[in-house]
């Protein structure tokens, strides 16, 4: 089902739509190319089962191996803490969304504007609207989602893929991000 169809079928986007991550390499390349990326993790990451683990476990591994700063939205931080990860910055999704539209904002580390924001684990429609905001009002930012649903407003997104494919892709991305 490698189409650019929104997961929630009525959440149709306009002419500019996300490029498909057809292979995990695409995602890796983008992450590696980014000078200042950030990973934004929503609360569903801790609810979604991916075989014996949760989605958040994969994201955490990715963050650690890829050395990505992490923002925990909703109450996700609790689940990071459970996993012993204390470095997540807590910030609501709409707040980080808004800050990313400010070309002056130097990020939570105060270093420089982010050039890649990777979203995962937010409610589909909320991620959709926030990515829309970024598509329109953060022209210098690239966005990516690692959910298994197509997010048309991102710069890159998986199509709607099965959990099996998703796990494989995530594993592969994590593997390669270290290299």
């Amino acid at each position, binding site marked *: 089902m490698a189409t650019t169809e929104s997961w929630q079928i009525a959440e149709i986007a306009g002419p500019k739509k996300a490029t498909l991550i057809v292979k995990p390499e695409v995602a890796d390349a983008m992450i590696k190319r980014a000078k200042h990326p950030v990973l934004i993790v929503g609360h569903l990451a801790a609810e979604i089962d991916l075989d014996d683990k949760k989605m958040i476990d994969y994201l955490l591994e990715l963050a650690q191996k890829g050395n990505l700063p992490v923002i925990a939205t909703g*109450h996700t931080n609790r689940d990071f803490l459970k996993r012993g990860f204390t470095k997540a910055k807590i910030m609501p999704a709409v707040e980080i969304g808004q800050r990313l539209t400010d070309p002056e904002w130097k990020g939570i580390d105060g270093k420089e504007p982010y050039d890649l924001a990777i979203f995962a684990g937010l409610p589909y429609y909320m991620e959709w609207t926030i990515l829309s905001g970024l598509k*329109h009002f953060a022209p210098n930012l690239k966005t990516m989602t690692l959910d298994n649903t197509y997010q048309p407003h991102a710069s890159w997104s998986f199509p709607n893929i099965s959990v099996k494919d998703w796990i494989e892709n995530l594993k592969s991305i994590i593997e390669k991000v270290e290299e």
Partner: protein
Amino acid sequence: MEILSRKSINIKIKELKSDIGNIKDLELSIGKFSEEKWTEAEGPTPFPSITALREWDKKLLDRYKPFYLPFCDLCCLCTYGKCDLTGNKRGACGIHMSAQQSRTVLLASCIGAATHISHARELVTYAIKKFGTDYPLDPGGLAVEVEAPIIRLVCGVKPEKLGDLETVLDYLENQLTQLLSVTHTGQEGNNLDFESKVFHAGMIDQVGMEVADIAQISVFGFPKADPDAPLVDLGMSVVDTKKPVILVIGHNVPPAIQIIDYLKDKRLSEEVEVTGICCTAIDATRYSSKVKIIGPMSWQLRYIRSGIPDVIVVDEQCIRTDNLIEAEKIRAPFIATSEKNCLGLPDRTRDSADDIVADLVSRKNLGVLILDPEKVGEVAVKTARAVAPKRKKSRTSLSTEEIIEQAKTCNQCKMCRRSCPNDLHIPDSMKAAGKGNIGMIGDMYEECIGCARCEQACPETIPIHNIIVSAATQRTKNESFRIRAGRGAIQDIEIRKVGGPIVLGEIPGIVAFVGCSNYPKGGKEVAEMCIEFARRRYIVCTSGCAAMSAAMYKNEDGKTPYELFPGTFDAGGIVNVGSCVANSHIAGAAVKIASIFARRTLRGNYEEIADYVYNRVGAVGVAWGAMSQKAAAIASGFWRLGIPVVVGPHGTKYRRMLLGRADREQDWYVHDRRSGEKVYVGPVPEHLFFAAETKEEAMVMIAKLCMRPNDTSKGRAIKLTHYIDLHRRLFGTTPDDAHLFVRTLTDIPITMKEDLTKILREKGWKETIIPDPTLLVNQVEKRGVR
């Protein structure tokens, strides 16, 4: 608005001819009254025009910059379009995306305001027809002297009789027309000016709601600012299904009241059950505690499909437009009662009640339109009694076997889930059900908002919503709760009592749960939040769908929130003000704090009062399931008063947030009223419109947004305690922005001293002063000036 304020001074009607008779020499003398009896000086903006408060709005919008979340890349408003507005492209009319989004917000707010205002007009017209223009307004008996704080504030008039409200309505309709015209292609071009107009729409919406509720309280004798309004029944299982059952749905209560009156007149009250959904239900219980509330608007399909109602009466607003179809399925006669919602039905207003009943009973007419509440009362009762014995209570619910059988036909295409607003796990649950386990799909009942989009999408035409409800039979059987009937306004004396503690911060905040039932994870979250904040001794207010959802929870002892907490407007109370329109009393209470407690001039003095509320009254509105255009308008009304609003994640679809930037120090200066100095006060309140991803995020944010520059150290310490405590509990850590809310060391809660002092040190915190805060230069008492 010169014309209207002029009119408000003295209107005399020499002759009045109407359907109900002629009146001679009637005098509507609002203005005269005001002049004579209301000694308060008039502020600068009575009947403000659409730009009169633009400077105030800009002050807020300067702090809380819109973050636009386009819900569509296109504009399709005119036939130049569709226009593609991505990549900062301008449409064929020259508009760009930010203005387009704010235009859409204005449109939604106008629709919302129009709905309340036209509802208010309908109520006032009806009331005048029955009781006359001179009928006195009395929303609170002796306990309420400031009878209409919002009207006084906005319009600068003091309504005393029903007729006085007409002048107010004229003004509102005029403003609404102007605001709507602003959305025309090629009118306003600037997004912030659109936003200012959104605030104006919200403000007039608030006035409209107040008009509606004080009118209906006055003429129908609803509880008058009564903290001890009776507890009434709520839930699917409270209905005595052995009796004929009438269902009323909507917002405009007169038809329901006529049903109740007709039953009373004919001594049939014990013979017929009157049940209701949505605000008409709430308002009907304000009239008679015998009426039973089924639930908020999301209960429509469930309840109708249960087959219980024998007759369905709809009025206006938030009514599923397919209820007529659903009614037909259960063979329940259907009565529409509003000009605004005629549903294609034959207008039988002028026919005799018995003829109409006959045609409904014989099913010659499956539904009728009756634009006369009295006649509705008679027809509904007679029809219900006639059909109830005959009608098989043909419910559409399924047995476990039937569920399993249906579930087996599922092809796992996932279209249901992909159509579900809440992305619920229908396919997995259906798979389980197909294998005989209906528990999972039954659990979905708690999260399902009853929209039936899943059913519409299913290629196998599986009756998904029915299955969910049927699988949850045990739950619906337990649906028996108690809600406190809407009390209406807040008493002046309550205001006097809590004014100080609120303004100083010692009551940590007023949290108002309002709005619709588009909940991300079910209505129980509202109940949970209410309880949490009531326990923490915030003042909790509820209205509309949220008030009903708040009731749908029981503790171990079987007590509902309304039984656990008192109905007083005081720390630890849970105050159900009433239906949607009653939520004006919540804003009204904030305004009354400025007026009654702080003795600020109310009359036509919007800016100063809003500045007061914004800087001093730690109120937060929460519309966890906000969905409608009315909710948009209600939120806008709060914003202009400087009251932040928190919505659920679906709220991001309202096209934009209004968010402060805690990291920009320069944004958070106020004037000190005494010295005139500019003082940094920290990001309080940090946001004006905020969509939370989860209940937990909402709760932490609510606690945070209750802080105000005016908090005393004692008050701030209390508020900080709640914020930090909730943050720790729900997020697992002490918040890393706590230092922003500490002005002096005495602000630090004692129990958190160690932790916080450390953070302050790390963050390079510096002590600041606590000013007498205002955003308005003209509020500064310069030496010698005042």
